[in-house]
């Protein structure tokens, strides 16, 4: 224990020597690692009887939780670019207290935060790079204005748009649920349920169109489904209020959308309108019906080429179980010429509603019964049948791999206790070590990529496995062989580490050969972009917990699942 009570009140730090600071640091680190709720008890115990020590540590904790000028490198003043550090838990932005990071959206990082005035949990979207009065800022403001003008049960509610020390943010409804992308990749809900989500999405986008707002970046990642089954469309990030506005964001829109869901006109850099959203919606419907996206290239140019020039394989060919009327809507939404697509979202909504009704009935319509009760009667049995293999295409090509995280708690650089099988959902402490164990009935190649918590706003990427091309790590794994990786350490800022587990039928040269430093960090921004692009276009895989670990399965030759590990 350290005695600080002898210090004068005016300048208590002046008496602090290196040894005392070392002790204060230790307590501070432990207290920060504990989380706010358990801190008081810890401090009471460790500082028992030493009020000065306790107030010293408490003032440091308070300081650590503020956003401050220290978080922005002064070099940012060199150019009209300001980099904001990733907000970390406990910091305050505006009137909101950040709890944790929940994801990345168009242009910004999204945090879960609490509004202490109302005791309400909100989603806080903070823009990561502010360019003064640049286009991006204008677009960001526009997003807030466009989206907050919309009032629809299937569109996320915006509470406020504000800025705090040049950090712009939007506070919006916090949605407990999953993205449609995650739902399609995981335990896939019954087809009927997914079609209902699609219908709600069509209603939301239709309402926005009626208000003169085009979404421009519709994709499975910004369609959220609450735990109660209500769709919430997010991220009117590229929205343009038709007729209004003082800048033209059309030009930049071409490079900002997500290529797989982008309309041909956007891919060519031409103006987008409501019918561009209809195309993107068609891509989503295709993915729902066929289990894969219609346009896929190995890189950005080839994906864009496919969007502009290639006709996708008809949905009925990919999956013969797709009802004809659904296949027809999808094909018409995906016409290259926007004049040939359905001309309104409302029309698409109507067609889908009728597909759902026929689908639910499963038999010739019986006249005289109210449709709703008819659907309810047949739905359970039909949904159960449909949810099985019929709607999950490509099962015969399925690959399976089982993985486990082995963790080791550490204290002062020494192992504490035994290595244990860790739940990916748990929270790890900085300094703890972990490694992966993988096994598959088929031979394959294993890769582990860390997308990091992205401190400082920049994209960061590490190839954790294999550590380098010439090293000892071998990514090829024989059938039923158990591969155990080397140890990794949680050592970034507290946050959520985004890992990708990849299991491939063949060696993935772009990953194996990516230039990187000895820590595995890929520094070349274009290599990072290529890698992220590759990861994001992987077909969805499903994961299930088994006695031996997490089993992931998917059709296709490369299987990849994103994994988020929280650490403090």
């Amino acid at each position, binding site marked *: 224990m350290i005695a600080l009570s002898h210090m004068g009140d005016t300048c208590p730090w002046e008496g602090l020597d290196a040894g005392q600071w*070392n002790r204060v640091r230790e307590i501070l680190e432990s207290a920060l690692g504990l989380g706010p709720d358990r801190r008081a008890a810890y401090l009471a115990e460790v500082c028992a009887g030493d009020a000065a020590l306790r107030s010293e540590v408490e*003032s440091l904790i308070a300081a*650590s939780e503020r956003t401050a000028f220290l978080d922005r490198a*002064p*070099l940012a003043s060199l*150019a009209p670019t300001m980099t904001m550090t990733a907000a970390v838990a406990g910091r305050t932005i505006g009137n909101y207290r950040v709890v944790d990071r929940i994801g990345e959206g168009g242009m910004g990082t999204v945090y879960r935060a609490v509004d202490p005035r109302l005791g309400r949990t909100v989603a806080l979207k903070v823009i990561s790079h502010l360019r003064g009065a640049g286009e991006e800022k204008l677009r960001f403001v526009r997003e807030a204005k466009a989206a907050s003008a919309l009032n629809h049960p299937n569109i996320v509610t915006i509470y406020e748009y504000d800025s705090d020390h040049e950090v712009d943010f939007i506070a919006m409804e916090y949605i407990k649920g999953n993205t449609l992308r995650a739902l399609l990749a995981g335990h896939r809900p019954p087809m009927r349920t997914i079609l209902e989500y699609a219908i709600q999405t069509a209603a939301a986008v239709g309402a926005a169109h009626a208000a003169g707002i085009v979404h421009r970046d519709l994709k499975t990642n910004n369609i959220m489904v609450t735990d109660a089954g209500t769709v919430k469309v997010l991220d009117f990030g590229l929205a343009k209020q038709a007729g209004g506005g003082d800048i033209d964001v059309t030009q930049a829109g071409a490079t900002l959308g997500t290529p797989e869901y982008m309309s041909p006109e956007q891919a060519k850099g031409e103006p987008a309108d409501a019918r561009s959203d209809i195309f993107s919606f068609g891509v989503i419907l295709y993915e729902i019906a066929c289990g894969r996206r219609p346009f896929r290239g190995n890189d950005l140019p080839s994906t864009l080429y496919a969007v502009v020039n290639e006709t996708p394989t008809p949905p009925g060919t990919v999956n013969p179980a797709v009802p004809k009327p659904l296949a027809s809507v999808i094909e018409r939404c995906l016409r290259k010429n926007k004049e040939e697509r359905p001309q309104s979202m409302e029309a698409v909504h109507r067609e889908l509603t009728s597909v759902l009704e026929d689908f639910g009935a499963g038999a010739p319509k019986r006249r005289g019964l109210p449709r709703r009760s008819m659907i309810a009667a047949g739905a359970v049995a039909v949904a159960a049948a449909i949810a099985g293999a019929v709607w999950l295409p490509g099962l015969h090509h399925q690959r399976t791999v089982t993985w486990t995280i082995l963790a080791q708690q550490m204290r002062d650089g020494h192992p504490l206790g035994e290595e244990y099988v860790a739940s990916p959902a748990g929270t790890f402490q900085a300094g703890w070590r972990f490694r992966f164990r993988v096994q598959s009935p088929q031979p394959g190649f294993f890769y582990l990529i860390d997308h990091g918590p992205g401190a400082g706003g920049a994209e*960061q990427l590490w190839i954790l496995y294999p550590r380098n091309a010439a090293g000892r790590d071998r990514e090829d794994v024989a059938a039923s062989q158990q591969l155990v990786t080397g140890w990794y350490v949680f*050592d*970034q800022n507290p946050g959520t580490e985004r890992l990708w587990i990849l299991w491939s039928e063949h060696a993935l040269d772009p990953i194996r050969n990516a230039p990187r*430093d000895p820590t595995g960090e890929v520094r070349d921004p274009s290599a990072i972009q290529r890698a992220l692009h590759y990861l994001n276009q992987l077909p969805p895989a499903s994961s299930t917990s088994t006695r031996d670990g997490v089993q992931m399965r998917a059709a296709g030759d490369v299987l990849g699942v994103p994994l988020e590990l929280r650490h403090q």
Partner: protein
Amino acid sequence: MPPTDVTGLLQRWTAGDRSAIDQLTPLIYNELRRLAHRHLRRERRDHTLQSTALVHEAWLRLIDQKQAKWRDRAHFFAVSGQMMRRILVDHARAQQREKRGGGAQILALNEAIDLPRQRSLELIALDDALQDLARLDARQSQVIELRFFAGLSIGETAEALGISKATVNRDWITGRAWLLRELDRRGPVESFSPC
């Protein structure tokens, strides 16, 4: 300016010749300004301009790599961190002196490094507090210097100092807390009077 001049000055400075920095600073300023302008002309306005990359680029262009004899990449980072601290803090002090009507000339690079008044006061206060932190824990103060002034990532800082990333992270979190708390205790930055 031929690169060798900068290299020579840098060698003199790292060897302890304090006058070298006075000649070195404007050279580096000018290069930074030139590069910043070039990037702004060439890049689209909505394109991120990485200031750290810019600084590294300036260094690489200015300094004759064969002559500079960096011991290693780590040494390069460490020197670049110290340099950037000196450059920015000196610049901030000069700005403050000028605002108070002092005779010191501001270097002609406001276009490139235009620090808002609040920012320059913060930098000066931080520089002083960092010196005190160095007395408590020299490594911790270096971590802050590299992260904040040189804009290095956690990984680069770890490499430059030959310590683990976990240590860098811990040093950063607690050092940052200490500095912010110190700056609070020393009073509002607005009333801070340099020197």
